[in-house]
């Protein structure tokens, strides 16, 4: 860590790096959200189901995010816990139109919150109630009820209604996440 690095950091030229985990069931829109947050020239056109995980980078106004975009398929979900230690924040994506699998999302969230690497850390969690554009989508309030988010007492959390295809609601969530991470750091 040279003097130059610190100097550039102070001047705001070099942004602080944070590691974020992006979790959620398969087909909830994790990769689409991350893709939409990247600069428009780096966005890919077609999104395919993620295998294993992929690492993506994007910048907000004051932070540089490194996102672990985990696959949500059932057989890859046991990979998640290996990255809990590194994560400084969690983005949890929910398909608001999939009423049937809301219990599965809740189950995975409960497993996440009770994991020893997460349980005692004050790690910010951002929820995206995604796919708001679909006709049978439920509201973000209903999603937070179904997932019993009010029971999370020891971690800052926030839920955003989003439509990843159009990019609605994403910036609001990322701004909240940035504030939280900076609040923890200072």
């Amino acid at each position, binding site marked *: 860590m040279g003097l130059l690095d610190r100097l550039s950091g102070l001047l705001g030229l070099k942004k602080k790096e944070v590691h974020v985990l992006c979790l959620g*069931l398969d087909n909830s829109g994790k990769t689409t959200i991350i893709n939409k947050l990247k600069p428009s020239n780096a966005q890919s056109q077609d999104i395919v189901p993620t295998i294993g995980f992929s690492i993506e980078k994007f910048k907000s106004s004051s932070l540089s995010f490194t996102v672990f975009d985990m696959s949500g398929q059932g057989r890859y979900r046991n990979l998640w816990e290996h990255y809990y230690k590194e994560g400084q924040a969690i983005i949890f994506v929910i398909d608001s139109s999939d*009423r*049937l*699998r809301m219990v599965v999302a809740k*189950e*995975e969230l409960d*497993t996440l919150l009770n994991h020893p690497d997460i349980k005692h850390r004050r790690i910010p969690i951002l929820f995206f109630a995604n796919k708001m554009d679909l006709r049978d989508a439920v509201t973000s309030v209903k999603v937070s009820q179904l997932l019993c988010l009010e029971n999370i007492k020891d971690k800052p959390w926030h839920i955003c209604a989003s439509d990843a295809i159009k990019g609605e609601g994403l910036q609001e969530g990322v701004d909240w996440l940035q504030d939280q991470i900076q609040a923890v750091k200072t």
Partner: protein
Amino acid sequence: MAAASSSDSDSGRAESNEASSKWLDAHYDPMANIHTFSSCLALADLHGDGEYKLVVGDLGPSGQHPRLKVLKGPTVLTESPLPALPAAAATFLMEQHEPRTPALALASGPCVYVYKNLRPYFKFSLPQLPPNPLEQDLWNQAKEDRIDPLTLKEMLEGIREKAEVPLSVQSLRFLQLELSEMEAFVSQHKSRSIKRQTVITTMTTLKKNLADEDAVSCLVLGTENKELLVLDPEAFTILAKMSLPSVPVFLEVSGQFDVEFRLAAACRNGNVYILRRDSKHPKYCIELSAQPVGLVRVHKVLVVGSTQESLHGFTHKGKKLWTVQMPAAILTMNLLEQRSRGLQAVMAGLANGEVRIYHDKALLNVIRTPDAVTSLCFGRYGREDNTLIITTRGGGLIIKILKRTAVFVEAGGVVGPPPAQAMKLSVPRKTRLYVDQTLREREAGTAMHRTFQTDLYLLRLQAARAYVRALESSLNPVSVMAREPLKLHAVAQKPSRRVGHTLQLLWPVPCLRQAPRSRAGHARSRLGTFLPRTGGALTAMVQGLGPTFKLTLHLQNTSAARPILGLLVCFLYNEVLYALPRAFFKVPLLVPGLIYPLETFVESLSDKGISDIIKVLVLREGQSAPLLSAHINMPVSEGLAAA
């Protein structure tokens, strides 16, 4: 009996409480209005979009309005009426072309309706059967108006009862009609030639020539005229025809049609027939002791549920492997296949609202539902593998999702015979003496029994005589003389100096009486347990630890009305061992029915821990023979030993 109890203890272990349940409750709608059986449920990716849909051949609330329903998630996507009650639903791939969306086949009446992309695609009808010539003749006569409807009805009824070839649907419907409707029916139908078609009872799919998951499959149909048909997946021609001795109701197939396959058909005569590729007739037959209610193949084991509330496992050659008893009648069965863990198990829906999951004989899990389960289906639904769909008798729909982390474990060592059965008994060698003795027993069995009976009667006689003697000499605490009906009950108690005082403060009397009695034991005269019908009764009780005991006699006048006056109580004891303040005293007037407690203290004099018997006699003034007597076994004085 043993099987039943072991399965009960099984259920206790395999049954998990809400919190640690293996299942997530995704959806429950008690008013979903779905009335169907397991055979009419199918799961498939009908649109090729990765979202698996549920196909339901719905019988309607009272079997009146059959419908084909397709569900996506908890909601009904499409619904269309069916011409007849559905018998079975299946999904299968018809051809190799892309996109590989499966077709839906629904067997109903004599037809199989095939849908692609949820649009009607093809209707296969079973081939026509030759009609009964007599019936044909009758309708021909009706056509030429040579016969009136009433005679036609009578003639047809005659045919129905006797002929080997059953009547056509047209004639059967005619026989159901009222007199007024007959004329119109005949004039409407007489010009049509009569057709006889059988109906489909069951349907399943069989891979054509590849064992792959997404290989082209043939439809296999079971019909009411005891035949099995295999249909070509593209042309819907009959590829093979097999005949059975009875009507098939459940089918289970493995293998490929072009290579080798095995077909098991559970039939209405209570037998399961097993056929192979080359056999036109059954190769093996499993005779069940009851009617089958379900047939599921788990790997190589055929599991049959029977009306005797049990599951049976058979090999594909018909050898019986095991039987498990259920707590209630089986209503439906289906296969549970968890591909990620390579598990196959049988689910059985029971009349008591349980769904039991068995892997061979071992109970893996019990799911309780609010209503009796009529159909079960497990597989990929929506985007979730391992989804269980349950419909109930009241038309409810339950969707449960197996947790990702859930592992089915067999409930401990209850599998197989109990461990005691495997233990080797040390059977003694057959000695010469043993053999001789056995032979003698075999030859002279009657004589031996007689000798034994004689001895037994002698013993009983002696016991009765001793009892009578005891009664006559008043050696008992219950008087038998009608003039002095009395009952004595004696209790000895020690007012303990060390413990008793505090106890008395803390607890009122009943506890004080209880505590020492349990330690020192009370000596209730054994004869005192004889119940009096008339006369008096005596019970004696000793309480305390020693050296001072309290002896309480309970004396009761058991006569109905007459009081007793002038009785005496006398104690006979060893004066070296015991000291009593009053060894002889008068009894007050005894009112009928009341129990009089007569207390006296007994001081144990010996410090050697010896105890003796104290005799209690109840006498009448002026008579030497006692009315009642009791022997009190005094306890050893523990107070002395402690001091």
